[in-house]
């Protein structure tokens, strides 16, 4: 295949014969005149905006203090009628201290079919973006493999506020490591493919609950 590699690169170079060899380098090639964030907000207002935008995209948003978190998670699992919950290996065990639901630790050995029999998943996140209502998972120990937040139909994601919240997409990108596999989630799975009617959930979790937890 290296034949085609050289062929394509040679074609590219020939196609760019009009580009002077001393053409401006990347750093000076263009400016970034756009904003780092949109509007001025206090820290509390940024968290409010996150909550508002998450809800606008049909995530269910809850707020509580660190002391109330275990009870909140237990209540959400009970309301859902979950029998089994998938748990990342590095999740703070206190978060699930108040629930009786069977815990299935995230493991490479679990097959997708086994995961399909799990009702819910509880994870932390890497960062949350207020302007777009997005939570970003980076596969860290408290978030687990990408598939555990995909196959179960119910995802409870805990965001520590305000320290895990940024305003904008540029600030969010800065906070995550591109070497890690990232999943950006804005609301539950959705489709508008049938006459543009929005329907929640085709393949991903149909219910996304975000718990904004304050204090430690």
């Amino acid at each position: 295949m290296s034949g085609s590699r050289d062929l394509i690169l040679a074609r590219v170079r020939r196609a760019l014969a009009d580009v002077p060899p001393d053409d401006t380098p990347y750093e000076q090639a263009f400016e970034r005149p756009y904003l780092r964030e949109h509007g001025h907000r206090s820290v509390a207002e940024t968290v409010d905006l996150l909550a508002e935008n998450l809800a606008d995209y049909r995530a269910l948003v809850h707020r509580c203090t660190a002391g109330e978190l275990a009870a909140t998670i237990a209540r959400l699992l009970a309301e859902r009628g979950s029998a089994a919950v998938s748990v990342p290996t590095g999740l703070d065990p206190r978060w699930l201290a108040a629930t009786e639901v069977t815990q299935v630790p995230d493991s490479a050995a679990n097959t997708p079919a086994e995961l399909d029999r799990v009702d819910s998943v509880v994870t932390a996140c890497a960062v949350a973006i207020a302007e777009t209502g997005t939570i970003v998972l980076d596969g860290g120990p408290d978030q687990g493999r990408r598939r555990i937040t995909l196959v179960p139909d119910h995802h409870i994601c805990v965001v520590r506020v305000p320290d895990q919240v940024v305003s904008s997409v540029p600030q969010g990108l800065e906070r995550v490591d591109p070497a890690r596999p990232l999943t950006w989630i804005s609301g539950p799975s959705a489709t508008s493919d049938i006459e543009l009617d929005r329907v929640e959930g085709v393949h991903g979790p149909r219910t996304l609950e975000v718990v904004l937890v304050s204090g430690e």
Partner: protein
Amino acid sequence: MSGGTFVGMPAFPKAAHEAVHNQTLRGNLRHATHTIRAKRANAVAEVSDWAELREAGKQIKDHTLRHLDRYLVQLEESVTAAGGTVHWAADADEANRIVTYLVKATGESEVVKVKSMATQEIGLNEALEAEGINAYETDLAELIVQLGKDRPSHILVPAIHRNRGEIREIFTREMSEWGRPAPEGLTDTPAELADAARLHLREKFLRAKVGVSGANFMVAETGTLVVVESEGNGRMCLTLPETLISVVGIEKIVPTWQDLEVFLQTLPRSSTAERMNPYTSTWTGTTDEDGPQSFHLVLIDNGRTDTLADEVGRQALRCIRCSACLNVCPVYERAGGHAYGSVYPGPIGAILSPQLRGIDNEIDASLPYASSLCGACYDVCPVAIDIPEVLVHLRERVVQGGAVTREGAKVVLKPAKGHAAERAAMRAARWAFSHPGALRTGQRMASRTRRFHPRSLPGPGKAWSETRSLPAVPAEPFRDWWQRTQGGKDTSK
């Protein structure tokens, strides 16, 4: 050239003529394009720096294209360092051979696919099928298209030409052929139809060993690939299988991780009119015990370097496939995506397909005429591709002939025969393009009513229209355009 998945299509004028007489198609398309158009306006109005984001997007992409050789080599290095394998394919046949070989090497005979225009462009599904490999489309709309033995008609919502009744009928009839049948007593509510698709496809996801995807972006600096989607079928294909094969055009590079900050803001708002699409996945090579353990990137040329060689036409390679230009195009709205005879419909298709495939056949020679040159496509484009400029440039090629690059070699096209009228029109258009003032007041403001429509909207729409994103009223009604350009000579009815 190979990979022509639409061989046998009639040229645009004939196909469009037929589509315009299809009431259902027109109704569905009109509803869809108008709905998305209105929502998009709001999404764009929310960001006060839209004009700056658009300019940055244009400049980043232009810079990348001007140094594409350097960024391709850098990308190859970083993907390899992250544990992936890079393959290069000069044309569709080679890309299909590579993917077929990679799938066969796993010993599997089925793959799950994320919606990808690149794989449609090369006709991958058909090539795999010929080798005994079933490729399942997993995007809901693509599933509807595939089960309906149909062609996609829109970049973003490929089954936009189908209504709920037709979809129910397709599911009931076809699902059992391919796996889990549609539930008994399936109604035509979108929620029930989506649920039927969920069950049907889940069975495939859970056993799939090989996934095939495209990518919206590739980051040269880090070797990261990005897929933007809504349903989660992308995440399924990117994380559950053991082997992942991504087929991506060489133009989809951005230099740095930071550059994504521009496109992750402009793509969702332009495309689905959302602040952010429900899911974005990024992956850099392979990760221990999380997702596929074997990752192949197939970089395809298939006419892209020929497009790059055209100094006017190369801007088409900036396209991020948001589909905003389709939704504002008066010709697309009436003719539908199928009329373009290519996987790239609408205004972008009218400039990209003839460049990727050459304008030496009837379909491609007719595509640069599939436009009223009203300029709405340019106004909405988040990377500011001047589609009308390229259309006029390509019309000139069709009519007058001239030097073009085909498969890396310079060839001289002969002028098309029987285009005397167009030749005259071309002279006028060339004059207008060398007199930009005349062009603005003339071509783009030529409609009899258009001057009475405000260019700037009151209230919340103001910020948006001030960035020139207002989908202007067509400069000329489609019917008039039709009469003037093609209607007279192609009236088959």
